[in-house]
């Protein structure tokens, strides 16, 4: 899959605008219960973690589906539910280890993140930049660089000459 939605937990402010706009985009109503993304909060500690479908490369949801209704979108790489095949048994809901397959009782079918056809609404609205839509292959690099920076500052001061010429 070319791009993925990445979560920078520390940046999340818990505003849940992602939930609201996701539900408006998909259902025309403002209703976090029908959003494909949810911010899990520990209010007493101020810890907020957006949770959504990880578009697994070996998805548990597809594995348990008795009707093979969940398959990969060739272009986006996301896992998509074919509602014509889906019987709503909700085995996928129970199987997903992230709890990211939900049930929308308005439409009466299972729901999951579909990356909004390659232009994720939640990402577009996240001013805190906790959600980004990034190149899958290189998504880890910015975190890696940020982590390396901490080491580099330490190393630069303790070993000023890194060329090893001695």
């Amino acid at each position, binding site marked *: 899959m070319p791009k993925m939605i990445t979560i920078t937990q520390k940046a999340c402010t818990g505003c849940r605008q992602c939930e609201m706009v996701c539900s408006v985009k998909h259902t025309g109503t403002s209703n*976090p219960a029908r959003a494909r993304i949810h911010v899990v909060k520990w209010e007493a500690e101020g810890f907020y973690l957006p949770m959504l479908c990880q578009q697994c490369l070996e998805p548990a949801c597809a594995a348990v589906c008795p009707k093979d209704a969940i398959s990969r979108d060739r272009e986006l790489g996301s896992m998509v539910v074919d509602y014509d095949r889906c019987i709503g048994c909700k085995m996928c809901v129970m199987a997903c280890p992230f709890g990211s397959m939900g049930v929308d009782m308005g439409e009466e079918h299972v729901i999951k993140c579909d990356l909004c056809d390659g232009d994720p609404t939640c990402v577009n609205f996240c001013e805190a930049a906790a959600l980004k839509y990034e190149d899958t292959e290189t998504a880890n690099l910015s975190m890696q660089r940020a982590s390396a920076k901490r080491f580099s500052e330490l190393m630069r001061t303790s070993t000023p000459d890194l060329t090893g010429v001695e």
Partner: protein
Amino acid sequence: MALNRKCAIVDLSTGEIQIKEIPRELREKYLGGRGLDIYLLFNHLQPGVDPLGPDNVCCISAGLLSGTPASASARTHIMAKSPLTGLLGSSNMGGFFAPELRFAGFDHLVIKGAAEKPVYLWIHNEKIEIRDASKLWGSDTFKTQELVREELGDEEIKALTIGTAGENLVRFANVITGHKNAAGRTGMGAVLGSKKLKAIAVRGTGGIDIADPEEALKYDQKVCKDIVSTKFGQIMQRWGTMFIYGVTNSTGLVRSRNFMDNQLPESEAIECENIDDHSVGTAGCFGCQLHCRHRYIIKEGPYAGTYGEGPEYSTQGVYGAEPDCRDFPTILYGNHLCNKYGMDTLELGSLVAWAMELYEKGIITKEDTGGLELEFGSTEALIEVTHQIANREGFGDVLADGVKGAMARLPDEAARYCVHVKGLSNLHSDERPTPSLALGIATSTRGSDHLRSRPAIDIYHLPEKVLRKIYGFPVPYDGPLTSEFSDYEGKPWQVFWHEMCYMAVDCLGVCKFHTVFLSPNMPAFREFSRWLKLIVGIDKTPAEIWESAERAYNLERLFNIREGATREDDWLVDRYFDEKTTLGLKMVRDKSIDREKFRGMIDEYYHHHGWDLNGNPKAETMKRLGIEHEPSRVL
């Protein structure tokens, strides 16, 4: 449909719960939120009741746009007769309660009577239950919300609650949701405490239909991007309201040592940058991209390890400027305590600073304070008195009675040092150099306050051209407007304009930081109109929205008149006129408010409102606004 949310009338004395539709005609006239609240309060409350008795009525509401794609659509409003002032009690808070109330199917709650034993309301998907709260009573605001979630078995439940301050009927007890979102002013927590209503828990999975979802999202995105592109937006994201302190204190617009000084010298230790030492990030209310509160863990000292959220600009006054203290961790800890106990930081700060001035002048002594050394500069006394007030112990019990109550228990000469209007204390702003801000606090419908009508942008010296654009819409204005905050000219119209603007956002349930409050570049009537069209599907021109705001504001005025307020109450304490400022920049030094000019401003202010010289709405104004037959008891 945003318009199909219901109103529930809950009688805690009888246990009766009525669920009613909100008539379309009331929506057309008042929109929702604070506007509908005053209609309901005016109609359901008998004048002359004891605010802490069972006959007081408490209205709690979500705004018409709460929980929808309007920027920062998070707000809840709470209204009742105030135990502090005996007049309108009215308070607003952010967080996540209002959207959840709407998802549960309700926009308005009217709470009447009083329970015999502590109870809480459980509202979930169109159902309401009154439940026993004996296991919650005695818990602080944080613990209460946790216990409610545990008892009801759902981590997603949102709740508003009172703390021990509310239980103890501290007259300025507040209502809290989340960790620090507070309906702070006018003692709404004491009202709920008197009704033995410990909390309201809410959970909903019902959606709000959006009239034009695609356009609403596009518009929301545009508005959000516009807001965060402003300097104000970026500063709020970074520092929260604490940034204001640097501006106002360096100018000389901050009360210090109660009201003796208009600046706190050498206050770098309590300026906003200090939050970086303790901050672990920021947090935002529902749908808000400004996330203006910090999350902090106090780094060192006696309060190390305490988790808290905020603090706000007012807290820098409460635990900083007013008591002449310069310890940032004390501000963080005091803030946390007030949130935990559930009481209004602002009221506390002003009352304590007053007491400190009395102590310094020997009007009260160590004997009166039960040994508590209430000296300016004492952070220990500040924290100690905070505990005392919340628990109604020692001298704290006196201050817990608020301005009027404390005055009755203190020597007569104490009264002249107290800074308040109508019995509500003032923020730590010193309005002597700013007639427009002084007019705002004198005339606000809930007493001295900075959120009803503060023309804060008046201190920015905006060019007249810009002022005309703002203040000439949606109702034309040809009178004077000046860029100087020291002028008296033209200011009454500005105060009027802001009253209407803030009333409108309070009806819509949108945060005031997202309107023309601290920045001229924020949404106002045009944006309100567009939101209503795209989200709710109703056609309201900017002028019609102004009219709804004016209608509700006049009802608030009538409410106060009915409770005995007169023109005399639209005034300032003598200190504003008789004591001149001594510190700060040249333009704010040696200033006091001129009585005659101020009298003239009040006259002009009444004139703009269509009120007579006694401040009573004229018959033709009431007719124009369609309120001549109130109370009409439509709902």
